[in-house]
């Protein structure tokens, strides 16, 4: 993996105003994204994990500029350009004018809604190409067929409507559309969560292959830690609009430091029937991003919370090479997990 950075998020925030009253004044804000800083390296796959409402999709959509961030910077280092561009400050028109629009693409969660039901597959895949360059109908068709072959479909599928395909095939078409314009960064927003397991495996393998072949950089947004472990080089765990832990995939799984990451990891129902289970059951639900708890946002559900946790917000600090965590007790969490598992009544294991 090269150490070259392709995208750098600096203190990115996205607040949605809540309007109220007759005059539609802002009465509150939903802090969907509350200051996150990440650096994505060229050619890597960064996994972004968290539960619903944690801001992972908002991050993805901010990177492809589907909605403008409230504040902060997104520095993009396009291929062959010396200086980074702050795409957070650009309008959609400027983005297109600087020829950057097509370099940041996205694959959506649900392939049934991400394609116009009244367009043929050929036109769906051809649309971004036509926007990019003028091609004769023949060349265009050849390009579309080439793309379809790349994602495991063929010429027979050109003249069909999306509803004639299965979910997995539809997601392949969506991937073909996303890579049609040779993007550099691909945001994958839960690309497999609407699919069955066997199809999920197909799509994951396809995405993995494409990344190597086309030299893409992925931001893989998902709630499923095992999926992200399979495909990602590094993982960032988010909770209520903040990154709580960031590490290499192996490190995150072997050296988990944040209690929330541990809860997520142990909460996944596993098919490994004989594996020992050290489950940590969190109480309650994710608090509302309208009114996030003071201090560490996780302290309301954390089994190891101290008084300090409800007062001061822990910064995201490096604890080792390629490992950052935002927890006041990060130095002792390993032993805390250990004793927690031991104390647990056997029935709950």
């Amino acid at each position, binding site marked *: 993996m090269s150490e070259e950075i392709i995208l750098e998020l600096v203190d990115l925030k996205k607040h949605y105003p809540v309007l109220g009253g007759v005059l539609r004044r802002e009465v509150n804000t939903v802090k969907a994204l509350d200051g996150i800083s990440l650096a994505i390296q060229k050619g890597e796959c960064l996994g972004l994990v968290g539960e619903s409402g944690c801001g992972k999709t908002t991050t993805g959509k901010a990177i492809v500029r589907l909605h403008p961030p409230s504040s902060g910077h997104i520095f993009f280092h396009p291929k062959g350009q010396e200086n980074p561009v702050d795409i957070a400050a650009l309008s959609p028109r400027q983005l297109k004018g600087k020829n950057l*629009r097509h370099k940041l693409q996205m694959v*959506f969660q649900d392939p049934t809604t*991400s394609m*116009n039901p009244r367009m043929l597959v050929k036109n769906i895949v051809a649309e971004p190409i036509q926007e990019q360059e003028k091609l004769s109908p023949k060349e265009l068709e050849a390009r579309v067929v080439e793309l379809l072959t790349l994602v495991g479909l063929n010429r027979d599928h050109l003249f*069909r409507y999306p*509803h*004639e395909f*299965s979910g997995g095939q539809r997601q392949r078409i969506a991937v073909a*559309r996303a890579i049609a314009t040779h993007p550099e960064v691909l945001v994958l927003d839960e690309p497999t969560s609407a699919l069955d397991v066997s199809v999920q495996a197909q799509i994951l393998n396809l995405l993995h292959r494409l990344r190597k072949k086309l030299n893409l950089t992925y931001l893989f947004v998902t709630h499923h830690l095992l999926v992200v472990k399979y495909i990602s080089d590094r993982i960032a765990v988010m909770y209520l609009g903040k990154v709580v832990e960031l590490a290499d995939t192996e490190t995150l799984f072997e050296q988990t430091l944040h209690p929330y990451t541990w809860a997520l990891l142990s909460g996944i129902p596993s098919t490994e029937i004989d594996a020992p289970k050290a489950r940590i059951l969190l109480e309650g639900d994710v608090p509302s991003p309208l009114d996030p708890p003071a201090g560490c946002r996780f302290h309301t559900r954390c089994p190891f919370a101290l008084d300090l946790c409800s007062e001061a917000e822990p910064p995201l600090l490096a604890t080792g090479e390629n490992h950052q965590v935002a927890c006041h007790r990060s130095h002792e969490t390993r032993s805390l997990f250990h004793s927690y598992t031991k104390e647990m009544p056997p029935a709950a294991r």
Partner: protein
Amino acid sequence: MNTVIVNAGHPRWREFKFMVYRIFRNPSAVIGFGLLFFFVGVALAAPYLAPPKYAHAPYQMPHQGFSPTPKAPSAQNLFGTTSGQYDIYYGVVWGTRTAFKIGLFVVGIAGFIGVSLGVISGYYGGWFDEILMRFVDIVWSVPLLVLAMTIVVAFGRGLENIMIALALVEWRWYVRVIRSEVLKLRDQDFVQAARLMGLSDIKIIRRHILPNAIYPVLIMASMDMGSMVITASFMSFVGLGAPKGYADWGQMVALARNYIVGPPDDPMRFWYTVVIPGTCIILFVLAWNLIGDALRDAFDPKLRRR
């Protein structure tokens, strides 16, 4: 649902066949389209079915004499004559054309204004949306009759003025319907994907929004084709619409106003003066309503699965 293609052929043709199947699965659609084709046939063949007496003004109903008492159907006047000795058969045949003229004009103009404003307002939102919707609210408060009377007083009596008045109030429906559809579509993933490609707003609206938002409008338009004719007939009946002698169903009913009930000993004596044009209106409206119903069932998103 699945990938195996059951019926071969070009996909657009398959899609069309499926749509036709869904529409005609409904028996009321068969009746509705049957009636509609009949009316279309009559309207197209009007010059042959009832050759106009005055070539320059075919919509003027011919009349022999000025007697106010209607005459019963006879060999000469197939459906009899109405008050003023206007030939009912001629009026009914050419009145079909008038009905289509009213419906197509009003729905066409109102639909065009409504859809274009509604799409812009729904897609862009913001202050334009706010101002337009408040303006629509104002239009909603305008009573049709008052507007029609104002226009008639200002520009004189005539079918054209009534059609303009109708179009001026009817578009408010279309704005609301299409706007709500666009609002639903605007945040759909496929529209966002189109934005990611860098498509211009006009292209997004033309390719992605309109084709998916237009169906409720089509349903409403078909219903409106009928109801506009009824309203225009009503205007003619109260004396705001077509001038005397114009081949218009509503105007013909208006002519027969004094003969709805015959003399005391034979109340049904002049039935043909009211029943024949009245039936035409009813069947015309019924045809469009049945079609509208069938379209609504066929385009019901809940049934859009196979």
